């Protein structure tokens, strides 16, 4: 595949296997630009990323001496001022692409050889088509998050996260206003679009992504504003309804907007909204210990109560200090204080009704939820997400260790509180959300054979202000997020961690993250941490972090060879452009809508 390169603008001067210097006549450089180095012979095309550059003049070593000369000799000038001005560009050798003869595609490889002496250098931004071909295998293929950024120019080259990377967790870091929310909404829009495409094309569930999204500022439903445009999930949902019930059902839970109560929800959102209610019985002690610090005494007391009471929270709430003698005085009061956010919350109810099974069921069939936590305390928010994560992990663990439905049931009963287990297993007569149809493949005698996990959608749990529960102070004992971070890949459960503060995150979590999107960061410490933690080597990117503007990020992924600079989509515009797809996906995909199956007449 031949490449159309622009006019060369420089010549390779010196360098080693990671760092190059190039002398260029074109002085309009920007940090972060990508240059293409074309050796005089051979089939490798090298790529070089500008990290820094300096002004130089041809025929001169010491610019300071020149400046001093100017100062002293006012009548001096620079002959050939335009052609003598050069820049010496310093930067990283990203690697090279080589044309694969079989696939006729350019395959990117990490640098293992140097471009030869005085190779010609071309500007990537001047030949975006060539750059696209060279980086084809690096830019990803599933969920669009933005476009390739070259300096301050954004190329029309979408950068995507691959679904297979999601269970290895994604970390998004950036200071306030850096573009985290824009990223989140772009990500979810892209995920919803992906799910519709897979649904319509009847592809495997493993290519679909269920997202349980936390909406701290209650902004994703209505959307984020940019200039005069504002589009959000409500617009996508409205558009999808027009595409028909089956399309809507394939990506959204019936009521996908979860909130504490409906009184604060606007009329147009009411149709998607549901007040989230969780039985106290569904909670386990580890849900509490995962999000708050407790003493051994308190843990012992809670565990003891949980063994004897299904609704152990209420039991503790009602217990008086005087009745318990086996624990140090004050333990019960302290536990009660810890449980206040639950006992005082309208979410965690004493009655028998719970939305948990429905949420789990819908997530397991590839649906999206938006959990508005604007009116919730952070503890309430964290307990809900912890409990949901634990429940999902438990059932997928059970699935992994079962081949038959009966085995699976046993496993679930062992791992989950009884009521929620029976609902999910269809043993409760009032349960409408049995996992049986989702989890079983076919009948095997009187039993059912289980599906394997890779036949289920990838689950993404977003965790906002991640250091609050995944910080270095977090309890590591029985913490479900530690388990997910280590084993999420096995169970196809990923976390999308959003933080302003990478340096405060728990190292185990960071070490298990394979995709990072680092937006504008607050200070040197965060930049250093981002560089240390990145899944690609981004040493030397310090300068670039310092010049990142809003919405600009460095995207790293351990399955890719190179870090990519990304301009996160202008989300209102992105959604606006995608709405016609959501309204009419069959037409956009050029797929004929299958007719409703009619039952064959009995002859």
């Amino acid at each position: 595949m031949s490449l159309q390169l622009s006019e060369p603008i420089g010549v390779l001067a010196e360098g080693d296997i990671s760092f190059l210097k190039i002398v260029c006549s074109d002085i309009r450089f920007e940090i972060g630009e990508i240059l293409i180095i074309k050796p005089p012979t051979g089939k490798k095309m090298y790529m070089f990323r500008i990290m820094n550059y300096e002004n130089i003049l041809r025929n001169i070593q010491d610019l300071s001496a020149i400046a001093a000369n100017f100062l002293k000799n006012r009548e001096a000038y620079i002959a050939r001022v335009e052609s003598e001005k050069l820049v010496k560009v310093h930067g990283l050798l990203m690697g090279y692409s080589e044309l694969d003869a079989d696939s006729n595609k350019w395959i990117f490889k990490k640098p293992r050889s140097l471009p030869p002496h005085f190779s010609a250098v071309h500007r990537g931004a001047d030949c975006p088509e060539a750059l696209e071909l060279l980086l084809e295998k690096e830019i990803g293929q599933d969920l669009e998050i933005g476009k390739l950024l070259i300096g301050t120019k954004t190329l029309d080259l979408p950068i995507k996260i691959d679904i297979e990377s999601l269970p290895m967790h994604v970390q998004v870091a950036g200071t306030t206003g850096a573009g985290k929310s824009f990223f989140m909404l772009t990500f979810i829009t892209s995920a919803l679009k992906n799910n519709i495409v897979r649904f319509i094309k009847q592809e495997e569930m493993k290519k679909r992504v269920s997202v349980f999204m936390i909406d701290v500022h209650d902004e994703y439903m209505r959307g984020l504003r940019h200039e005069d445009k504002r589009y959000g999930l409500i617009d996508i949902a409205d558009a999808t309804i027009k595409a028909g019930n089956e399309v809507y059902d394939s990506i959204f839970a019936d009521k996908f907007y979860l909130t504490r109560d409906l009184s604060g929800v606007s009329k147009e959102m009411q149709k998607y909204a549901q007040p989230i209610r969780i039985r106290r019985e569904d909670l386990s002690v580890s849900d509490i210990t995962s999000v708050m610090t407790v003493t051994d005494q308190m843990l012992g007391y809670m565990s003891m109560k949980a063994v004897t009471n299904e609704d152990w929270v209420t039991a503790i709430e009602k217990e008086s200090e005087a009745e318990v003698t086996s624990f140090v005085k004050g333990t019960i009061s302290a536990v009660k204080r810890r449980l206040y956010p639950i006992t005082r919350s309208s979410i965690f109810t004493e009655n028998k009704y719970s939305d948990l099974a429905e949420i789990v069921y819908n997530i397991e069939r590839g649906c999206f939820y938006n959990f508005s936590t604007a009116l919730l305390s952070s503890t309430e928010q964290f307990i809900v997400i912890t409990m949901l994560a634990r429940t999902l992990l438990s059932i997928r663990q059970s699935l992994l260790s079962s081949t038959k439905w009966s085995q699976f049931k046993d496993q679930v009963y062992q791992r989950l509180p009884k009521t929620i287990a029976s609902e999910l297993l269809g043993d409760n007569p009032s349960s409408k959300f049995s996992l049986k149809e989702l989890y079983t493949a076919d009948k095997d005698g009187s039993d059912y054979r289980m599906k394997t996990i890779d036949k289920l959608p990838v689950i993404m749990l977003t965790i906002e202000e991640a250091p609050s529960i995944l910080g270095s102070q977090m309890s590591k004992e029985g913490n479900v997020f530690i388990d997910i971070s280590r084993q999420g890949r096995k169970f196809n459960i990923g976390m999308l961690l959003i933080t302003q503060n990478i340096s405060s995150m728990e190292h185990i979590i960071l070490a298990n993250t394979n995709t990072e999107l680092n937006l504008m960061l607050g200070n040197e410490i965060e930049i250093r941490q981002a560089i240390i933690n990145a899944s690609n080597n981004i040493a030397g990117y310090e300068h670039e972090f310092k010049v990142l503007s809003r919405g600009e990020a460095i995207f790293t992924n351990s399955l890719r060879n190179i870090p990519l600079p990304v301009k996160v989509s202008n989300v209102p515009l992105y959604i606006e452009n995608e709405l016609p797809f959501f309204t009419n996906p069959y037409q956009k995909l050029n797929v004929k809508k299958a007719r409703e199956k009619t039952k064959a007449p009995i002859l």
Partner: protein
Amino acid sequence: MQVFFDETIENEFARVYKRFKKFELESDEAYQDDLDYLKRNLVVFEPLPTKCQHENFNVTAIDGSGADSLVMLNDIAIHLLTAGFAADKTCFEDGTTEQLNTRPPICTHPEGLMRLIILREDKSKEVWEEFLSFIKYNYNEELETVVLRVLRDFVYHKYVPKFPNDTFPDIKSSIDLHKAAIKAGFKLHKSDIFDFSEWMVSPRAAAVQGWFEQFREVVEYSLAHSLLNSDTKFKYIFLDGSLNMLLSPGQEQPRLASNYLLRDLCKKSLNKETCIVAVSKTTTFPFVYRIAQDLEKELGGEKKWFVRIPSKQRKEPTLKMLENRPHIPPYYGVTYLYHFSSEVPILRIDLDYEWYMKNIFSENTKIQKAKELELFQEIDWLSRDVRYFGYFFDLAFAHNSTVVSFAERDVVAEQLINYFAEQGENPKMFIHPRRRLGLM
């Protein structure tokens, strides 16, 4: 050497310094007289502003370099010759210049040319034949043709004032020239002017660097010739060096082949209204450092001035310091001293005599001074690039583009040896015997 670090050397320093002061003292009287002359005749001038309204023009400069005896094998020497040029258009209004996109056909690369020659220097006839073909190849004319043309011109200038009513004879051969020369009283060194090989080489040709220098001059003049013949019209062509000619005492005819090329170049430049400016940085002009110091004391270090050196050939008084330097000013040249500032050594500027007579000289001293002033203001402006403040930037650029560093010389030599090895020669034979014996 240990002796460098003990006091023996200091005694030597003292002895040398004493001699140095003696030189100054001995020549002091003559020097003071000359200094008075120079003071009376020098012109202090105000430079052009950096940005000004002035008619723009093109300018170029040529410099040569190379590597003498790149490799040696007994009596066989391989020399590397290079010449580079820089060409610019002034942009007075912007206070800068613009590089001209000129590439004369002789160039082997955008900034100049490179040649390799192989000589058996003890075989003078063979070397001479090589030299002639080298001139033909690079200068694009037979040396004979050039010599005949230049001599014809010399004779013409003698003939016409003597016989103003005669038509100058049509000179087609050396016999025609010989006849006309006798009539005009122009003494030719040889009656058969084309029997070159006996005399038209440098007396130093057989010495180390002798041939190398002469070939190098051919390369430089050839590049200048090619630039002059290009489509670009240059107002100034700067050459590195002087317009010195080698003349035997009492003769008017230059000796060296390269002198003829230089004369030819000057003549062609005159016809093209181009001024050849030869610039010497390290001049053999005696006591020029003293002149600078004394005049700076009087005028101030930052004053710019120039002064023309009187010429014996033009019946002007000879500076006493120059009594033993008949080549200053050169026989067919006019020499100026040009002071830029105290930071920069005084430069010796040689112009072609004929160009000078046509473009500067005037019976009216005021007019002549005005023309000189314009010339020096322009060339002063061309020496104000911040990188080479006080020197002509195009000469500096040309120098940079052509100079062969020791490292580059070694690389080329190595490549050359490798090439020979690839052809089946033993590379060891090129390694200097001293190096092979471990003595360097």
